[in-house]
């Protein structure tokens, strides 16, 4: 009996009724948290890790699974800054806007990035290449100002060095794509 159940579960993991095996991964987390409603934030984190961002479908799916009103799931997901509802760009440039970085000129760096790539912080360029965002504080205040380019910390940045670094990673991808 127990074996049969395990086999059934394994089968479930492999093929989700939706045909999207990523939902199987999400179900695994739901089972691990025993479908507890207070684990919503944790589950949203996992969902965003799996799918890259939170779409409406995912939110409705989670609401059903956790037996929560969709308004509650939507309300929580939109409350917290780390949840995103649009697909991120292929590359990212995150300017730390902690106090130490601000004091050392992070605002100017953000402005120049916004101007150069014609986006506002938090947005992705139209071609989906680059997401420019700001972070509260990455806790490397001794290295201020700090910019994370594709998640890698670059320290003691200036406008010029940041634009050069970001330009480099964006250009890299394009040459690879065209090659």
């Amino acid at each position, binding site marked *: 009996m127990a074996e049969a159940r395990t086999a059934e579960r394994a089968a479930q993991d492999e093929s989700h009724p939706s045909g999207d095996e990523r939902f199987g991964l999400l179900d695994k987390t739901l089972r691990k948290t025993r479908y507890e*409603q*207070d*684990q*919503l*934030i*944790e589950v*949203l*984190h996992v969902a965003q890790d799996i799918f890259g961002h939170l779409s409406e479908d995912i939110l409705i799916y989670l609401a059903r699974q956790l037996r929560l009103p969709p308004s*509650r799931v939507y*309300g*929580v997901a939109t*409350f*917290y*800054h*780390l*949840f*995103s509802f649009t697909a991120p760009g292929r590359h990212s440039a*995150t300017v730390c*806007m*902690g*106090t*130490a970085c*601000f*004091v*050392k000129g992070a*605002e100017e760096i*953000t402005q120049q990035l*916004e101007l150069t790539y014609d986006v*506002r*912080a*938090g947005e992705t360029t139209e071609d989906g290449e680059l997401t420019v*965002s*700001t*972070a*509260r*504080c*990455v*806790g*490397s*205040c*001794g*290295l*201020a100002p*700090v910019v994370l380019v594709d998640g890698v*910390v670059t*320290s003691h940045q200036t406008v010029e060095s940041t634009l050069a670094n970001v330009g480099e990673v964006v250009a890299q991808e394009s040459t690879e794509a065209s090659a």
Partner: protein
Amino acid sequence: MAKQIDLHDVAHSELEMRSRYTTRVKACSSTACLSAGAGPVRQALEQAAEREDINSDIQVVPTGCMGMCSSGPLVRVEPRGAEPTMYADVTPDIATRIIREHVVVRKLIDEHVLDEDQPFFSRQRKIVLGNAGRIDPERIEDYVAEGGYQALAYVLSDLAPEEVVEVIDDSGLRGRGGAGYPTAKKWDMLRRAEATPKYLIANGDEGDPGAYMDRTIMEDDPHRVIEGMIIAAYATGASRGYIYVRAEYPTAVERLERSIRVARRQGLLGRNILGSDFDLQLEVRIGAGAFVCGEETALIASIEGRRGTPSLRPPYPTERGLWGQPTMVNNVETLANVPAIIANGADWFGEVGTPKSKGTKVFALAGSLVNTGLIEVPMGITLREIVFDIGGGIENDGVFKAAQSGGPSGGCLPANLLDSPVDYESLRELGSMMGSGGLVVMDDTMRMPDVARFYMEFCRDESCGKCAPCRTGTVQMHALLDRICEGVGRKRDLQHLESLCRTVRQTSLCGLGQSAPNPVVSTLDHFRHEYVDLLVPDVTYNGEAPAVPPRPEAPDPTLPTKGGAR
């Protein structure tokens, strides 16, 4: 029942293992040093040690933060029976040389040696950070060898819960989250609460931009936080504990979770802790980027999986908190003080600091200083000592202008207040606050209205929207500051701003709103002329209209705001 750890055995065998090495090389692997390239440095150390190490008597230990983050990556060489040496700005090449030259042939690499007798180190007093930079945070044996979990063993075998509260009361420990509420009072309220189960929450939602004290404590000495929590839970009768950590601190989350698992396996958590009849379950909960969740009622809502909006107090969480049960929220740093107080006694703790603010405080020292990093200083130290002795003065021979403490809830202190002591009461009197421990020093190139605008933008973005004074007040105050900073503000704007500051402070629901005006009020107190200089002179009817720049369009509050990681 889980296996019980024998603390003496573990400590003994760990110390014996250490003594087998003739040299222990400690490599700072904290977030700041890692961003500066500590990863390859550690690899180089290990490879070089392996190559040179014929009798395998060199041990490379990854440790937590050594403090002087501006000189990272840091490496400390500790030969057995000789003075240790600290190296600054280590690259993989230097790391290889450290092993080859210093460790093997005892020749120092002078140009990279960091003097540990300099005031940055000698003026500090480490209690909470005692193990940071000294032990491998991922090994419980290292913590136990430094006396870890001894306080817990003593408490469980020799003290009744009320006696534990008494020791904490005698020590005078106050909340390190910023407000400075006496810790023992909170503990006693939870202990007296009758409803069960009771909950204990460690607040590690450190949202103040420019502060990373709690992260360092959680990353570098996770077992100290856990031990403090077990003692607090025993004293108050809590049966379940949560550590609420920002999602932005993945390393802290990982280390805490691993340490909890290890502690459970060793019989330090779970049922019948260390053979006593005391049970405690601990769990890590992750935030999702909301500054307001540092407020205790909002934090509780977030643990329940809801929007992190605060609720009105009373009832205080110690009466009705998590899931309606008695709950106590303590800051991570507060809890990290507990094992040391129990182990060394209340009197020992009381010797450090001032009569009203006892012990030490950890600060994240940042800004325009020669030395920046993480420091732990006795309460009552003057700002001047922190800035000029520990911080080494203003970088590039600049001029000190102001020190900002308390982040978006705090204020700026100008040069004429440099000699005021750093303790809860003094800072509050001066219009700032201790805060969680961010300390940012600014030189005279900084315009103070810009600083106020920066913090107001932060509060505007982080306002949870539940109460009107904070939700709309921060938007209006930011718009007014924006006008003033852009040079199109008038006298009336400044008057509006000041009156709004009073309203928002008096009528907001929670600490975020109540303290949001602080940066404006304190910069106005000390640097009013900077605001006035930016104002457009009022129209005078002397026949000539003064040139007035056009007003910018009011910002559209419905647009997504810039700033804030979205």
